[in-house]
């Protein structure tokens, strides 16, 4: 069965400090991994996906198949990064996303 685990419900960091939001997954095949973000009073939106190997708003995430992890990182947190972050997994094609429970990131000025 597919499962996504985000061990931290809340992560508080000071502005300018590095951020790492943890995500571990359970899936026997080759997963597609994603990070979604939800800012206050806004819709859930895609932040980045592992196959693109892109950096969005300074965030990056590397898929580590050995550790079955897809941690989200940013070297210097900004106040506008405060939001709920969800890690999600899809098995292949058009299969639905499976989400983790989310981590609330709070960046303190």
């Amino acid at each position, binding site marked *: 069965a597919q499962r996504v685990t985000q061990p931290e419900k809340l992560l508080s960091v000071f502005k300018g400090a590095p951020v790492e939001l943890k995500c571990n997954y359970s899936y026997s095949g080759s997963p597609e991994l994603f990070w979604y973000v939800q800012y206050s009073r806004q*819709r859930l939106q895609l932040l980045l996906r592992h196959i693109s190997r892109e950096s969005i708003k300074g965030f990056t995430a590397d898929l580590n198949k050995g550790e079955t992890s897809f941690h989200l990182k940013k070297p210097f947190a900004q106040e506008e990064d405060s939001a709920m972050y969800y890690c999600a997994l899809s098995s292949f094609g*058009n299969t639905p996303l499976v989400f983790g429970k*989310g981590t609330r990131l709070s960046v303190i000025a």
Partner: protein
Amino acid sequence: EAEVAQSPRYKITEKSQAVAFWCDPISGHATLYWYRQILGQGPELLVQFQDESVVDDSQLPKDRFSAERLKGVDSTLKIQPAELGDSAMYLCASSSNQQGPYGYTFGSGTRLTVV
């Protein structure tokens, strides 16, 4: 930018009453999803449509929940009778066949409170 429309934004209903939510996906998106998000948890899939056909409703509590997408465009999710445990945010998302999960667009959701 095209959006997924959902209504109502908020709904308060009494236990045992019927309630319905509506979703209008982005034009041309063949795949439509209904997710439920209980407070403090991530979204969980209820049902997936491909055009007008149900692809996956394995997590839909069929004794009280129903979903339809008659013309393969907009969709309705119904709960009858509502229970206290149904209080949650109900999210609709759509994607085109070519985009798969990469192209999910979520609506703003309907927040249901059952009293």
